[in-house]
């Protein structure tokens, strides 16, 4: 009985300490030291409208934009309120049907295209992967250049500024941030209407 009382008191006291005080103090510190990062690195237009987060993938399907990876988050994909992978197993027919359709579309949209880089036709674990590989960006350069009426090398120069190498030179993999790249293109070389 004494142990039951101790257990109850211990639950209450430690819940207040570790379940409330600790996260609230961390929230306070984070908001003061890293206000932008603690709030999700939102990208806003001049009028304050939120148009996305630099960490969260958005869908792009217009030919003048670099396309992001397919997404299984939410019913329509790219739902940052319902993150998810496809969870298709390696012998799932639905996986092959989806990849086949995507490969055919990508090869039709990017004439002269060769093998498609794997990340461009696979869904990410989160469904919100903000990046594509440099290979997937290069794959799309001719199409984007044609749509925007500029040379491929001009597009490549912009892609290069949004390509991040490995962190500290060796951690992770090289990536291209799709949303930031597309916003930069819209600013520097807007699409012809």
């Amino acid at each position, binding site marked *: 009985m004494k142990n*039951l*009382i101790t*257990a109850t008191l*211990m639950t209450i006291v430690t*819940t207040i300490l*570790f*379940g*409330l005080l*600790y*996260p*609230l103090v*961390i*929230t306070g510190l*984070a*908001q003061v030291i890293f206000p932008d*990062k*603690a*709030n*999700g*690195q939102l990208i806003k237009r001049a009028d304050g409208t*939120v148009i*996305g*987060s630099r*960490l969260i*993938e958005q*869908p792009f*399907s217009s030919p003048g934009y670099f396309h992001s990876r397919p997404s299984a988050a939410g*019913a*329509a994909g790219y*739902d940052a309120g*319902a993150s*998810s*992978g*496809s*969870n*298709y*197993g*390696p*012998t799932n*027919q639905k996986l*092959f049907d989806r990849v086949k359709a995507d*490969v055919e579309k990508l090869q039709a949209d990017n004439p002269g295209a060769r*093998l498609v*880089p*794997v*990340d461009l036709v*696979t869904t*990410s*674990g*989160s469904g919100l992967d*903000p990046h*594509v*590989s*440099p290979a997937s960006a*290069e794959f799309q350069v001719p199409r984007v250049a044609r749509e925007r009426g500029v040379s491929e090398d001009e597009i490549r120069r912009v892609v290069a500024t949004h390509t991040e190498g*490995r962190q500290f030179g*060796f951690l*992770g993999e090289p990536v291209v941030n799709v949303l930031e790249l*597309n916003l930069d293109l*819209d600013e520097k070389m807007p699409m012809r209407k």
Partner: protein
Amino acid sequence: MTANGWLQILFFLAVILAITKPMGLFITHVFGGERTFLHPVLRPVERLIYRLTGVDESREMRWTEYAAGVLLFSLVSMLLLYLIQRLQGVLPFNPQELPGVDSSASSTGFVASAFNTSASFTTNTNWQSYVPETTMSYLTQMAGLAYHNFASAAVGISLAVAFIRGVARRESGTIGNFWVDFVRANLYVLLPLCFVFALLLVSQGVVQNLRPYDTAKLVDPQTVEVERKDAAGNVLTNPDGTTQKETQHVNEQTIAQGPVASQEAIKMLGTNGGGFFNANSAHPFENPTPFSNFLEMIAIFAIGAGLTYTLGRMTGSQRHGWAVLAAMVVLFLAGLVTAYWAEARGNPILTRGGVDQSASAVQSGGNMEGKEVRFGIANSVLFATATTDASCGAVNSMHDSYTPLGGMVPLTNIMLGEIIFGGVGSGLYGMLIFVILSVFIAGLMVGRTPEYLGKKIESYDVKMAMLYVLIFPLLILAFAGVSVISPSFGSSQLNNAGPHGLSEILYAFTSATGNNGSAFAGISANTLWYNTTIGFATLFGRFMMIVPVLAVAGNLARKKVVPPSLGTFPVTTPLFSTLLVSVILIVGALTFFPALSLGPIVEHLLMSAGKTF
């Protein structure tokens, strides 16, 4: 497989080995009641907690009272978590105005989700049948779920320390005071590490706020085809069996927010693994950069590795601690190399479909379904191996989408008992059970009474050890077996057909019983059957194992020490590490090989032949 991938893996292992000693030494000091550099700040808090809860810190407990403390605390804290979930609709820190869990809003009736979550988080499992960002309020995440990440981890560390005391003490009736161990594990070990770790995570971009979810206006609005659903959420089908589609215009994106970093830190350090978001550590807000990913992986092993040093230190045989660590490293590398090889090869059926899966300077290649570009193959398999070696269960890639052999590695790691570094505390006491079995088998081979660090291992100890070893597969195979036999139980909820479907069910109960919490997540486990059976699997897998562990600890503490003789099998040599690895593999293989051969192994053969389901 790339040179850079191997470099990252070796760097990871080097850092783990480098922190083993300082971490272990610190833990030894804390539980020995010695003064540490944190005492000026934390000792007054510790004393205040004892005063508020009426704990006498000088009082020692027998193993039975220690076990009663563990069970009572777990019961009470589990009930509180259940209440918080059910009542979150009327509690504060709920900007999304989410209703209570399992309230009548659910279209599929009562599914016992709140019970499942309570059991799962109390047992350090963190299996999640719910989608966090659409289910749990910020209060439930902080004071319910993240709190249990602290509490269940501290219970695990306490149990490991109590077990080490049992080995180290001579002719003693007691093994420590549970309440004191619990408070010290939380206050001196977990809290300071989390504090620093959480802020480091924020610096990488992990969010930490209490604001409502944001809505972004899409740069390139979309028109998409989605499946039509009725009011209850069921997909509508045409008479010919195909699903009905409708077009939908998507102009906005909801961006979920929350106090993530504080929870992420304890989720990893306490080997809990329950994600703030559904996608867990694959979500860019939980794990935005390769460096945050590296820190999270280090956190999985940090305390488990340190405890092997604590073992050596407290038992006065430092080389024994290193010998146990060596066995862990061997098993870790074996799994890692297998998974890395399998995932880097990619999926042969995709290669035939015009997809480039080769590794190069501009892409990581390999099987990228369910993986993030910033992590690539190397960091995904490293995370998957570590999270299942330990009983963590966080994921930065979707194990369900791994190649058959790549996915078999996490499954096998859990089946071996999560003793490779292992969950905080639970990994070490699980490993020590296998140590006892190993010295017992070695004793049988030379025909001598087995000894472990001067303690004679007798029939009672071996019986308890065997109980520990047998309960685990019995629970997994029985639950999985029953789930497979009827669609109304389990097999209707699968996302994948063929042998992969069996793997999903097998993984679910292995993960639950092993208190891991990762999943082949295609399985729709938010049903009455799965929530109930998986909930009980987590409870049995935790508490039915803890009791024999403490019984062995109590029994060992009572024994006299006999001086080592020529016939004593030393537990400090490479030979011992080899025997330990062999015993673990033989026990695991004998138990689970038949089930594995029907799941991942046959799937691998079928995939190589180009067969799909």
